[in-house]
């Protein structure tokens, strides 16, 4: 098996990631899988732990985001599948790459100010990419810094 996994988070900064994945799929002819991971860690900071409802809502939102990406792929003649997984983002990406025997993994590069509060700093992202390459054998591709 082979394929291209594109982890999609949504938002304006995902657009270049999606474009790269579509272009790559067209060039290599490999099947394209868009992945959205439902992760509810943000609820840990509030008093709400009622994950049963929000989990479903987030899944629907993920499907919706993936539908947009699939629509873009279809416009360019590429058929793509949308997959929604639940859990820790990194783990789910690795699991899917292993499951599909993916050759490529396309992930986004957050467009953040250096002082912004976000766990996906550039340094951590590079480290994350190297780890995934080691674990799955898939080549990690990220958009250039804007």
């Amino acid at each position, binding site marked *: 098996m082979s394929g291209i996994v594109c982890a999609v*988070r949504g*938002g304006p900064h995902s657009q270049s990631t999606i474009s790269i994945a579509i272009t790559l799929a067209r060039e290599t002819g490999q099947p394209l899988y868009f992945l959205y991971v439902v992760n509810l860690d*943000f609820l840990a*900071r*509030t*008093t*709400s732990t009622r994950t*049963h409802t*929000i989990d479903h809502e987030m899944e629907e939102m993920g499907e919706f985001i993936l539908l947009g990406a699939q629509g873009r792929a279809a416009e360019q003649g590429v058929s793509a599948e949308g997959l929604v997984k639940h859990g820790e983002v990194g783990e789910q990406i690795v699991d899917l790459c292993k499951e599909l025997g993916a050759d490529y993994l396309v992930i986004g590069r957050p467009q953040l100010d250096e002082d*912004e509060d976000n766990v996906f700093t550039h340094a951590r992202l590079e480290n994350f990419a190297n780890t995934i390459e080691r674990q799955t054998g898939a080549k990690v591709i990220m958009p250039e810094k804007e």
Partner: protein
Amino acid sequence: MTTRRSRSNLVAAALVVLLLLLAYVSRSALAQSSEPVEDVQMVYLVSGVVFDEQNVPVKDALVTLTDDSGQERATAATQSNGRYALTLEKPIPDRLILRVERPHFEETKVELGEAVIQTLRAGQPVEVPEVILARTITPAFWIATFVFAGVLVLIATGTIHNTLAALLGMAIVLGVSYLGEPINDGLFIFFFQGALAYVDWGVIFLIMGMMMVIAVVERTGIFQWMAFMAYRVSGGRIWLLVIILMLITGIASAFLDNVTTMLLMTPISVQIALALGINPLALLIPEVFASNIVGISTLIGTPTNILIGSYANITFTDFLVNLTPGVLLALVGLIVYCLLIFRQDLFTGQGHGASSLLEGKLAERAQITEPDHLRKAAWVGGGMLLLFVFGEHIHLIPAVTAIIGATALLIWIRPNIDEMIEAVDWTTLVFFIALFVIVGAIQEVGLISMIAEVIGRLVGDNLTLAMLAVIWLSAILSTVIANIPFTAAMLPVVAYLTATIPGAGNKVLFFCLSVGSAMGGNGSLIGASANMVTAGIADRAGFTITYAYFFRKGFPALLITVTLATLWLLFRFLILPE
């Protein structure tokens, strides 16, 4: 025949003997019982009341009467109204000293005068002049204060879960009381029973009942349907869509908790925005602002209102009548403000128009998934609303209404009971219980009294100044401190101001606290749990709401809405006749 007669005579004689015996026994008993009756009459009553320096009754103070030899003659504990009653047996000594002791207060001794002694000897009950206890600062004061501050910091920084932070605080104040007291008396805060006395079970059961009802409603798909209808009705006019979504979110927040409302509204709003090709934050930020301000129109709309209503005995109707006009005024101001700050997204940048693929998906999702449950929930919800409004006439407290409504709904729809029990957010309930204990600790050691006194001195007898102080202090502090613990701590402070400031008896300051603490939540991302939930979901859709971004949008919203609500409260309570 003769035998029968002699038998009858024998029985009659036996009866007479028995009666005589009974009469003798009764007389003896009466004679014996007359002596204690005489003794009871010789018990003398000494009563009085104990207050703290702010004229608040002191409960559980130990009151002891000693004679000149130092021997204890009578002892009693004060009740919740500060009253005590001592029963003293004769003989009445020449000198009696009343000693009042309570942890966190200085021991006070009062010698009863000659007139009191004479009155007692004359067999008359005596009412002792009120005793005022002065606070004392013990090591426990600092421990409780640091624990409360520490919990606030842990919650604000998100270092650990809110409930864990509150549990940690509770464990420290109780642990120090039990483990520290044998080492140093000054480390004692309260015993377990004393701590539990601070837990407002009315709040716990009201929240629990409402959670069960909400658990049924949220699965029906009503929110997704309403949001889609808003999308359809707006007909592509995004400014109109924003207004309708703000109204839907606001009204829902008045009856459901804000976090649940935003948990359900945010994902569907993101989808609508994506379908329209606009920035979802242009919908989400106005929605969460509306949720935070409209929720205060009812008793059940915000946790802070539930706390305030239960503590100050403010009814559902009281909130509705006294706050709704101010809330509507603030909402109008908020709508204008939101249309202004998001004008680029709402008027000029109308996105790329609705995608037919995504619109089809939206329509597919906008289904009422459980119409039968929704219908039953509507009936029960309507009944609960009636009980909330009219139940006050029969002293039906909101917690009981919530429990009756939740149980009726569960029996009617017969859901999977495990799922329903799981749907109750137990961590929130534990959070509240632990929070009550922590706030009880700072109340017990005197921190709350100290704060109340300082604010009382600052505002003096000026009700207007007190109103402005409570509203704006609450609003500004709620931007940096979680508003639930803040409100819980402020309740006794506001009660003190209500008791001491002329004209505040109509509970106006509690309404000011409600407005300030809830609307203040709009001032920062950490100001309200609903903000955090909205930001979390938006982030998962790739639209990050940073602290700075939220502050830039939210703080002006706070200034506008709180100003408008303040104007209403001043008009309602200072100008409009009662």
